[in-house]
């Protein structure tokens, strides 16, 4: 990937034209300092009402019981955990872009990292919602944490993957939040110096009294590097642990050793798809196409292509191991995925995740906004159904055929899914209104290097 980065930056600039250092902050910050446009309001209303639907559905669930969902004695998890894994997956691209690409010195990341990180934060928030509401007694959720209590010796079961999840998700959320904020401190400084009055006070407060002194910059860059170094294994560990929820069980279709890499690849895949979707909208709305250029999108399209083929490889590996194992339960489970009552979901997943990304072999299509946008949406649909397949299709026909059953979601569950998207986009829309959606200092740094390269090229 590093190679891609260099060839790219060499071949053509990441920032089109030379807006000058001032313009960058001016354009990005300008939108924060001005009033939101109608486009923003429209989007915000849609997102907020979706969120409202979710709030009602969740309230109803908690008031009446999990019975309001379509689950039964055989299928204990449905939309709830499907959504959970889906959102966790989305939440991976941000850290990946800001951390791993930073370590890989992928400069093309600078313009998009901030938005991607924000996306991570919000996606993890959506994800964290589901483990709570899927409990039969969510008001006792705090029992999932090991806290000293007066019930005699009573702790959590550290052998349970759900407990691992609790720690993984919360750690991931905290570290991502810190990393995100760390990245924004200098930009808050910039905003502080651009604004007046209350805004200035707030930004001033947020900027922690940032001065651009060389000493601060030195420590700061070091800290960023260290955080990136921490976040990189973290981001891999989180989805690995999520995959353990299934991999450590005995249910055929869950009990699979390839899950960790398979899940991580899937996470990167869906995460990048979501980043593309979001940024294509953002850059339009904020008129910063020269910062988030087609090149950036193309890079991400290439990542989609790669990870898409990774998950495709995982799917086929699963089928092969199921066949090769000779285990009748394994074999049946995958037969059932491809030919059973949920075959449509399986093939939908397969098409969206394996076939659709193949269009990105073509440079022309990589550059076509429409193709990219639709493609990224389809990938997200496909990735949602991948999780649905893993969770539901494995459960509804497990070991004893006498208790096999079927699962159909209720309106409540659909409402909660809609609500999670509402939460996600509401948060994101608010973010683009109050925080620098592009990391000025990083982009300026990139511009500086670009100028330098240009000068070298001239000489």
């Amino acid at each position, binding site marked *: 990937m590093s190679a891609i980065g260099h060839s790219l930056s060499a071949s053509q600039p990441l920032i089109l034209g030379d807006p000058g250092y001032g313009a960058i902050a001016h354009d990005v910050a300008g939108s924060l300092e001005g009033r939101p446009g109608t486009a923003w309001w429209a989007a915000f209303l849609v997102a907020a009402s979706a969120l409202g639907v979710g709030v009602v559905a969740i309230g109803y669930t908690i008031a009446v019981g999990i019975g309001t969902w379509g689950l039964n004695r055989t299928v204990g998890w449905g939309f709830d955990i499907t959504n959970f894994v889906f959102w966790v997956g989305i939440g991976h691209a941000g850290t990946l872009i800001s951390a791993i690409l930073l370590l890989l010195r992928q400069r093309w990341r600078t313009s998009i990292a901030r938005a991607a990180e924000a996306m991570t934060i919000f996606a993890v928030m959506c994800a964290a919602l589901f483990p709570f509401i899927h409990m039969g007694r969510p008001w006792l959720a705090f029992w999932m944490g090991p806290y000293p209590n007066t019930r005699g010796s009573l*702790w959590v079961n550290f052998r349970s993957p759900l407990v691992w999840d609790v720690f993984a998700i919360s750690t991931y959320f905290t570290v991502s939040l810190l990393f995100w904020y760390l990245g924004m401190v200098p930009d808050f400084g910039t905003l502080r110096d651009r604004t007046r009055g209350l805004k200035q006070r707030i930004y001033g407060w947020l900027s922690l009294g940032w001065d651009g*002194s060389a000493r601060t910059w030195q420590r700061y860059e070091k800290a960023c590097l260290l955080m990136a170094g921490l976040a990189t294994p973290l981001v891999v560990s989180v989805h690995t642990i999520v995959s353990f929820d299934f991999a450590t069980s005995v249910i055929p279709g869950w009990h699979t050793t390839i899950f960790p890499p398979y899940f991580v690849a899937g996470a990167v895949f869906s995460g990048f798809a979501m980043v593309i979707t979001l940024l294509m909208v953002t850059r339009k709305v904020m008129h910063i196409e020269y910062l988030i250029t087609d090149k950036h999108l193309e890079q991400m399209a290439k990542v989609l292509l790669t990870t898409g083929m990774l998950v495709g490889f995982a799917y086929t590996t699963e089928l092969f191991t199921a066949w090769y194992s000779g285990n009748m339960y394994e074999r049946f489970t995958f037969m059932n995925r491809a030919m059973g009552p949920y075959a449509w979901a399986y093939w939908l997943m397969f098409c969206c995740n394996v076939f659709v990304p193949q269009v990105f072999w073509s440079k022309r299509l990589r550059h076509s906004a429409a193709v990219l946008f639709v493609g990224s949406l389809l990938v997200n649909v496909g990735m949602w159904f991948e999780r649905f397949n893993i969770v539901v299709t494995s459960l509804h026909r497990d070991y004893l055929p006498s208790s096999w059953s079927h699962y159909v979601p209720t309106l409540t569950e659909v409402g909660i899914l809609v609500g999670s998207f509402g939460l996600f986009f509401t948060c994101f829309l608010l973010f683009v209104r109050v925080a620098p959606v592009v990391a000025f200092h990083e982009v300026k740094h990139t511009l500086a290097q670009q100028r330098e390269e240009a000068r070298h090229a001239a000489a």
Partner: protein
Amino acid sequence: MPRLEAERGRLHALIFEDPEKTLAAVRQLKGEGFEVRDVYSPFPIHGMDEALGLRETRLAYATLIGGLLGGLGKLAFQTWVHVVDWPYNIGGKPDLAFPALVPVTFELAVLFAAFATIGTLFVGRRLWPRWRSEKAADQPHPRVTDDRFAVMVLERDGSFAPGHFRRLSAGLGPEEVIEGWRVL
């Protein structure tokens, strides 16, 4: 800028529009024996650390210590829970099921390392919420967080040659020179 309070003298600021010029200026001034106190820039400038002769930061040790504390601490706690305080037959597995303890241990190591890193940075560089009024004094130019670059030269009694300084700085092509921006 409390860390300068030890020293007496006048602080001159050279404002540039361009990182390369800034870096060159610093090198020149240092070469000519002037004392460059600090540089303010909207983004880090490559080579500035060497030019200013700043020594490598030891932030990484904080990270390491934090990580070790978190990891070992959590591992010890889990073992204590399942072996000492609350041994229980769960799924017929042994009390000390080490592999099962790895994920949480790892997560906690990362979490503590992150806290240590950020914490050390913020405390070490005195980054915490304040009001701008106080900050205004520290920045020679309102746009050093935007698109201006400031080189701060300290004039001590005696050793400093104002004439030479003016000639030299004029040659460095600054946007402006603020002499005696502040008297320490």
